[in-house]
């Protein structure tokens, strides 16, 4: 067992070839997740959170493909494994939980059958043993009367119970990493809290790494150890959850935090981030957030900021860059907001 991170992603780039050119959907994403750690991946729809998850587990839908970068699981590269070997990784070493528990389970099989089938696909155990483990797992995720409920069909469970079943399915081969893609979005608020607590508990008990994909900062604040904020296919800020939620640096991250409703606050209107995320085919040349950024200045329009370390944070914004003054001076005469479509298509 290595002491390094469970999952290590380096400079991951994912592109979609389309008729109108190549779209770069992930542009140099890097992060690590350690044993027993929950990394929260946040951002708006289309920021590339789910795509990152799909790329890690090797389930990118064609024409999407990884063009460069590395994905390492316990030090071993898995981004270019042949399909047969990747299948042995999926479910066995990396598990994935999807957003909607109502549609994640096959309606025609009992939950017990689905768990047993997955166990038998990965572990050299007998049917009887698989059945026993399936029932233990259902108990572990908090299904009452697991022996009986194993023979029930998915439609006989409520939404929250189904998400527990989905978690049991994800855990059945004792994976090192769980990718949870919006695991609570489709659930009632009261059930959300239970599922979050369950994920947290399982992560600690089993020493799993968890990649928690969500757009809900509240979920992140309760569950994650570290947070990575994504915008338009890049990580714009990352840091420990307390630092990022308490004192976000990037204007986008600040906007996200300001948009969380608070019970104690006065009844003012919620803060919004004006505008919408640019589409991939017309990303601005400079910082992708700059057209919506209240603090943008000339230099933001011409160059993309790289991640720099600022205390506990790493942030990609010129507000925190070194030597900013020099560059700002150089680009003082640069044309103001410039939004030509071409730079989005990084490769012809």
């Amino acid at each position, binding site marked *: 067992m290595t002491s390094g991170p469970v999952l290590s992603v380096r400079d991951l780039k994912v592109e979609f070839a389309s008729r109108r050119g190549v779209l770069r959907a992930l542009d140099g994403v890097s992060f690590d997740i350690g044993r027993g750690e929950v990394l929260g991946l946040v951002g708006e729809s289309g920021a590339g959170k789910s795509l990152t998850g799909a790329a890690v*587990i090797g*389930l990118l839908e064609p024409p999407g493909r990884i063009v460069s970068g590395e994905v390492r699981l316990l030090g071993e590269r898995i981004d270019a494994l042949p399909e047969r070997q990747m*299948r*042995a*990784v*999926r*479910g*066995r070493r990396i*598990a*994935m939980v*999807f*957003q*909607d528990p109502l*549609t*994640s*389970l*096959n*309606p*025609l*099989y009992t939950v017990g059958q689905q768990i047993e*089938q*997955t166990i038998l*696909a*990965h572990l050299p155990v007998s049917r009887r043993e698989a059945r026993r483990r399936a029932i233990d797992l259902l108990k572990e995720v908090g299904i009452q009367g697991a022996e009986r409920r194993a023979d029930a*069909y998915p*439609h006989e469970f409520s939404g929250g119970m189904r998400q527990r079943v*989905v978690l049991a*399915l*994800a855990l059945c*081969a004792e994976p090192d990493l769980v990718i949870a893609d919006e695991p609570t979005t489709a659930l009632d608020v009261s059930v959300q809290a239970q599922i979050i607590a369950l994920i947290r508990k399982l992560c600690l008990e089993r020493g799993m790494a968890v990649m928690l994909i969500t757009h809900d900062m509240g979920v992140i604040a309760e569950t994650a150890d570290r947070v990575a904020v994504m915008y338009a296919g890049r990580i714009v800020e990352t840091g420990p959850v307390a630092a990022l939620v308490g004192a976000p640096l990037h204007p986008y991250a600040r906007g996200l935090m300001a948009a969380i409703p608070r019970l104690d606050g006065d009844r003012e209107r919620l803060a919004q981030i004006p505008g919408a995320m640019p589409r991939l085919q017309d990303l601005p040349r400079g910082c992708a957030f700059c057209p919506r950024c209240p603090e943008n200045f000339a230099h933001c329009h011409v160059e993309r900021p790289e991640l720099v370390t600022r205390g506990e944070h790493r942030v990609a914004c010129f507000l925190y860059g070194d030597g900013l003054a020099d560059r700002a001076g150089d680009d003082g005469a640069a044309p103001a907001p410039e939004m030509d479509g071409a730079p989005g298509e990084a490769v012809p």
Partner: protein
Amino acid sequence: MIAFVIRRLFQSVIVMIAVGLIAFTMFRFVGDPVNQIVSIDTPREQRERVRQDLGLDRPVPVQFAAYLVRAAQFDFGMSYQFRQPVRGLIGERMPATLELAGVAAVLALLVGIPMGVFTALRRDSLLASLFMAVSLVGISLPTFLIAILLRYLFSVQLGWLPSYGRGDVVMLAGWSTGLLTASGLKALILPAVTLALFQMTLITRLVRAEMLEVLRTDYIRFARARGLRNRTIHFGHALKNTLVPLITVTGLQLGSLIAFALITEYVFQWPGMGLLFLGAVQNVDIPVMAAYLMLTATIFVGINLVVDLLYAAVDPRLRIAARPA
């Protein structure tokens, strides 16, 4: 479940009574049945006697009830054309039609389902495109044209297969079967292929469309993310979820295979019920037509009942729905 079956059986009986009414009305619709039986120069007293013998002087509802009672015992009266009991005529021809339709249905399923799965999984391959092109031909060419083309090629030009008839048949407990003799099997090939072709292409296209739909669902993505083998995912998870629409269509199509094998039977002079019906229409043989109507209705109702039961067997969600509220 039993309550569900009983309810469906009760509904079936109502449907059959309605069909019986239509069949019964046919007798009166084409004029006085007595005229169909006796000749033009029959004296009046004799006509009245025939009328009384047949019970045609009784009130209409009584006649209808009597007709239903007799029909329930498979007694459909005498054929005007053959002067034989209709029951015997149909009994002789039904095995031919059922064998033809059964073989055609099995053929359509055995070829159609794998082709549908294949074209869905290898959507971009050359072979899949070829299958889809062929299926377009199968679905758009009319049956009689396919029959004539097949007959021209395999009987007239190549001389491999007989062009008409049923070949030698063997009697097996009152059922004449052509499946046990070489000439019977050879004679079956062309009509069965003709009849199966349309169904096959229909099933191929249906399975393909349903598979493509199911392969996009979350539970298939989740199954992939759990590292299940492709074969398990495609056949155990995806294909099984296409079965409900497939059973619906196959059930309906099987009914029409049996009931409307008319054209195929006519082209190949297949001695089945369709040919009997066509003859009956030409000769205004009402008892045969009425019996044919009742029989095909029974087949449809029976198949629908089986289809409903199969739904429950395949999809657990429908088992709940089937329970009385």
